[in-house]
């Protein structure tokens, strides 16, 4: 009973938040709604017993990603109203609804055989976090490491892209050009 109440409550909240996030014309509202939606989603994870995932959801999304977006928004000066295009909204809503209905139909029709065998069953008597850790560092170790590398690459690329003068490559420049660059730097430092 409690589970059902919680599910419906959070479902309503999540849908409402995300709806605001995609429809509002105020970027700030959208950001706030999105962050709220993320937190509400973590509630589902807790209901489903995926405690660690829920924690990660709050930390990564509401913490890191939203912070990034918030900084980005300051950078882009999105305080002015966001202009939306004046295209046919029926098409957009229609396509979205159709896709949703189709997916529901796919899930509602039990096409998948029921005899699915769990590859990595949850271990009885251990907490979710410990359980996740055991699987993640054994069976999914290589994808985990690859994901780590990917994050590193993303971080570096983010720095390179956003940083100033990051488009200059010392390895691709001739010595004379490097000297020029150094001179300019020195000038700035001196002045």
């Amino acid at each position, binding site marked *: 009973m409690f589970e*059902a109440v919680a599910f419906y409550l959070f479902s309503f909240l999540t849908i409402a938040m995300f709806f605001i996030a995609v429809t509002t014309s105020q970027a700030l509202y959208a950001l706030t709604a999105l962050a709220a939606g993320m937190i509400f989603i973590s509630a589902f994870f807790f209901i489903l017993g995926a405690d660690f995932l829920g924690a990660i959801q709050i930390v990564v999304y509401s913490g890191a990603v939203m912070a990034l977006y918030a900084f980005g928004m300051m950078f882009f000066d999105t305080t002015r109203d966001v202009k939306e295009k004046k295209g046919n909204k029926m098409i957009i809503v229609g396509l979205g609804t159709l896709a949703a209905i189709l997916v529901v139909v796919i899930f509602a029709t039990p096409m998948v055989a029921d005899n699915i065998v769990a590859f990595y069953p949850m271990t009885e008597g251990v907490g979710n976090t410990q359980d996740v850790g055991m699987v993640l560092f054994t069976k999914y170790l290589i994808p985990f490491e690859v994901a780590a590398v990917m994050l590193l690459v993303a971080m570096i690329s983010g720095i390179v892209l956003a940083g100033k003068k990051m488009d200059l490559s010392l390895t691709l420049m001739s010595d004379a050009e490097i000297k020029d660059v150094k001179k300019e730097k020195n000038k700035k430092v001196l002045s």
Partner: protein
Amino acid sequence: MEIGLNHYLVLSTILFAIGLVGVMRRKNLLLLFFATEILLNSVNIAFAAISHYYGDLTGQMFAFFVIAIAASEVAVGLGLLIVWHKRHGNIDLDNMSTMRG
């Protein structure tokens, strides 16, 4: 009233549809990124639910990787947006027409 897997899947689908509408509707690239976050999260719900109802941790593992990918996407995407904004002074999707055929 028992909450089953289908409930979660339908919820996930609805959130995904909202995300799709956002993707199609938004012109501002930053808000477009918001919509893609919604898409990824809706899928995460489905993964977690399936993981729970089948008693298999694989779903949660995939959810982790999705989160990792989402984080990288934001990092790279925002970097690109900044570069674009420096060059053109806006992040309007309709102005990005260098791929015109």
